[in-house]
């Protein structure tokens, strides 16, 4: 099978994969999240296509560009899609492979001081291209997604140090290797994105990696809440030295991505939901950092995006309909706002029962 035929068949495959969600919606007309997207776009997307995280020195990241591209593709905003794509290609495409430098700093002498990548940014970017290929009727985007997926798999999929043969999605092309194991960020493992990328590009390692990621997160959840970072060693997982072992701003995405991927009853989701339910915090304050072992709340935030995350987790693990998710708002920083939008999208695509109330 030549490359073009492979791409065409992949395009059809991913279209059918996504038929129950965003694509079907896009085909019917306005996506229900269009209004929220427009608000998000006005707050965080520059006209030139740069997604700005003002809290982090106004930086842009391959992650935020990937999130933006995915959201634009999902709601069918071709202009935003193209601008994000153009800016990213011009400013983060600094490597000889098809991956992106992970960060762009506006006020730095060198805008891209580091050419390492961030694997979740690349993964979401490829996923965004694939969605855009379908929603915007531009199959040629699959070519670029395939290039990224191929290089991403080569650089960031490693065998598990325990010799089980499982595949590990490492957080970057470099810097994850330790003497005794691999550093991973469980929230970079997005099974649904991996599966759709695999189905669309033919890079089958991502399909395996998706399944193995779910298993690795299951193992981690056996010991409590999923940590922000962990080191996988032949003998098991240990806290990554010098990195957060708490269930914090990174790991809060794990239940979101699992729910989005159809893993609503995953142990990690249930543990996170139970921790939210047990947290005795004031109304309007959502736990954002919890002790991994005890579930003690270490930090809270009033940003509604975090509340939406908690609301979705609590709903999917209950039998009730309706999730206590706040209305989308940009009266919060980029990160919780983006998680907020993605939480709504995950609910819309994966758990219709948990409609925001």
């Amino acid at each position: 099978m030549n490359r073009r035929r492979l791409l065409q068949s992949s395009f059809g495959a991913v279209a059918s994969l996504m038929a129950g969600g965003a694509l079907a919606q896009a085909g019917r007309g306005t996506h229900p999240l269009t209004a929220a997207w427009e608000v998000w776009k006005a707050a965080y997307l520059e006209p030139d296509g740069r997604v700005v995280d003002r809290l982090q020195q106004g930086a842009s990241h391959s992650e935020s560009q990937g999130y933006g591209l995915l959201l634009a593709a999902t709601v069918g905003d071709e202009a935003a899609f193209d601008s994000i794509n153009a800016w990213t290609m011009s400013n983060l495409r600094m490597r000889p492979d098809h991956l992106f430098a992970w960060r762009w700093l506006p006020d730095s002498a060198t805008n891209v001081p580091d050419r390492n990548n961030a694997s979740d940014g690349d993964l979401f970017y490829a996923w965004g291209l694939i969605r855009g290929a379908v929603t915007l009727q531009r199959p040629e985007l699959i070519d670029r997604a395939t290039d990224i997926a191929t290089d991403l798999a080569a650089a960031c999929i490693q065998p598990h140090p325990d010799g089980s043969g499982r595949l590990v999605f490492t957080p970057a092309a470099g810097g994850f290797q330790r003497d005794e194991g691999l550093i991973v960020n469980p929230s970079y493992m997005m099974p649904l994105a991996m599966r759709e990328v695999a189905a669309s590009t033919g890079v089958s390692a991502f399909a395996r990696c998706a399944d193995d990621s779910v298993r690795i997160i299951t193992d981690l959840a056996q010991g409590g809440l999923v940590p922000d970072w962990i080191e996988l060693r032949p003998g098991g997982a240990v806290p990554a030295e010098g990195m957060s072992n708490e269930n914090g701003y990174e790991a809060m995405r794990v239940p979101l991505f699992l729910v989005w991927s159809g893993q609503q009853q995953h142990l990690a989701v249930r543990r996170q939901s139970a921790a939210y339910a047990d947290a005795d915090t004031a109304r309007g304050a959502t736990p954002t950092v919890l002790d991994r072992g005890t579930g003690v709340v270490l930090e809270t935030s009033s940003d509604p995006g975090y509340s939406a995350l908690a609301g979705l987790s609590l709903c999917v693990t209950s039998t009730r309909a309706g999730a206590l998710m706040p209305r989308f708002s940009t009266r919060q920083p980029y990160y919780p706002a983006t998680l907020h939008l993605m939480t709504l999208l995950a609910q819309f695509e994966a758990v219709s029962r948990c409609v925001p109330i």
Partner: protein
Amino acid sequence: MIRRWLPPLLVGAVVMSPVARAQETADEPVIDLSPLLGLEGVQPTDEAEDPAAPADEIDAVLPDYSRRAPGDAAADAAAGEEPDAAEAPEPEPQVLFPAVANGGFGIQRMSGEHARMELRVIVPPGADVEALTVSYRNSINVLTAESQITAILNGVEIGSWAPNAFAGFETVSLPTDELRSGSNELILLGDHRHRIFCGPDATFEVWTEVDTAGTGVTLDLGQLSAQSQSLADTLLAQLSSGGGVPLVAAGTPDPALVAELRRRIGGLMPGLLPDLPVESAYTPAGETPSLARVAIVPDTEGPPVEVRRTPEGGLVLVVEEGAEPSALDTFLPLPEARTGPTLVDPGQPASLDDLGSGAIEMRERYERVDVDFRLPRDWLLMSSQKAQIDLTYGYAADLPEGSLLLVKVNDTTVRLLPLFGQGGEVLPTLPIGFPARLLSPGMNRLSFEAVVPGDPPDLPCPPVDGPILAISGDSSLSVPPSPRMRRIDMGPTLYELGSGTIEAVPGVAENSRAAAVDARLATLATPYRLDADAGDGPAPSLVIADLTRLDDVPLGAVGLDRMRLETALGVARPDLEEDIAEGSTVWSLSRLSDAARTLWQRIAGIARPGDPPLDRWLSDRQGTALLVMPRPDVPEELVLILGQRADPATVAAAVEKGRTDPDGPGGQAALLNADGTWETWQPAGVAPVLEEPLTIRNARIVAGNYASWSPFIYVALLTVLVSISVLLGLIFVVRTRESRNR
């Protein structure tokens, strides 16, 4: 080799980088990133000579982010320690529970020298009230030094203040001691003095406005419980804030369920047509979070209806799509039927007490009191019968010359009484006769209008204790009985509408005017209590359509021309106007034909009184909506057609008001003007219908009604009868003469 270039690069990145320096010198979010090396296939940017160096030989730091927002109090306090955020809970946000005005929500006005406003202040069960506030402003004509606003809570005066909010709304705090759980009656008495003038005009110029959205009790949001009463109270407060109650759903909810919810929520404020829009569950947040809302969710095995707290702290009624209407009863019981204006029994005097107004006291220099009542739908007197008002009244001594009391029936003055010369005592009962034909079947209005000039008019009014005019509750209205007769009249159907169905024409767009009016009118489905004379036939129905859906409503029997209708409802027709303009300059056969037609129509108009055909009637009118009874033989079916300029809220309010307004829609069609008034079209040629046997007893009145309806036909009929009589007489005379001659 790697170890040779790695240290300088790390130093360069971490120390020399302006970003890194900023991170070290300021307490800003830290992004700890050192350059990473050894990437397979990556070209080095600086001194890196071997970018493909194995990662495991590099002591590198992975991309990392600081996600925590500075300024997050709980987070800041917790940073670096092991605190439990739950130990120092933030206080619950305080919210204002808006008061409910009897006249509506939003900005309410009380005007006159002795103004009064009644409000309901609701305290949810178990809530501790922090404050009771009133948000008000005055007209610039109010003389602060001699004016006062007094607040009476549950019958106890709790405070008063001199009104001086001339620049905008100001807030007054009142003591909360007299508040009790549930509904509290707050009466505001505005004792206004005009700065300069005294008289009827000055009465209108002194006023105080109260903003219900800023008036009410302040309490902790956390004190709201998920009890049914709390939900009703909170919904009422949300409605009173003017923000409406959104019905939130992920997709398109079942219209029947939406109508049911609107009917029940609208029953909390009967007749005020609150905004109850269907909103997407994904709609971004507005400026102010709602105190209460309704969410329609997919079916589960859980309870079909329950109350939960929203993330913002308000209450949400969660209703499953398949919930039976009865499942709503606990939280939103079906509204009770409203009591409409009193139905007067013709032939029996009805006192003001009977009519519900009781004794009337007037204290303003200009004041009008309307007493609405109804007559049976089959009551009809069109000729010379007399009705009578027996008025017992008195007025204050020393009122200036020129003081007047106007007694009106359906806005026609039937007596003008002086209010000077005999003041200070109750006058003997005064019989005031008036033509019964001023009354109509259905809604009627008796009005008393007092006008008292200033004395002198160019100085502030002197303080007056007590009323200027008092009318006894024993004063009565006597309406003569009539045979059971009817004309075409949509009024009764409109009055009974609440017991039937109101819906937009099928297929109408969700964001159309028709859908919006439907949404508003669904809340008026709170019916009026029906009388014994209500029909036993099918329940009344109202179909709402706009000009794009005219094909879906049965209008053929009315004889409506689509183009005329569209023009009357705001569609510009330049071509038509040009044609007319051109035609007017050409003297042609068609013009002669038009003139002949006009002449004939005038002649026919004498014979058949009433309005011209609907097409022609509409041709010189412009309105925003047309209410039609398409088939006179099916009076329970009404159609509302919305024009291009129709504002849904205004149209809905006009329809609701028209249900009990003597000037509301009647006849077979009624056009809503831009100013909110209705013009009724009464078709010519449709005679009143007698609904009882013609007897000797009722023959005279029946004949009088027909004679009044069409004198021409009546005279012609009489002429024919007389001619036949004469002919018969002649025949009799001729025949008897012939036989006598033989």
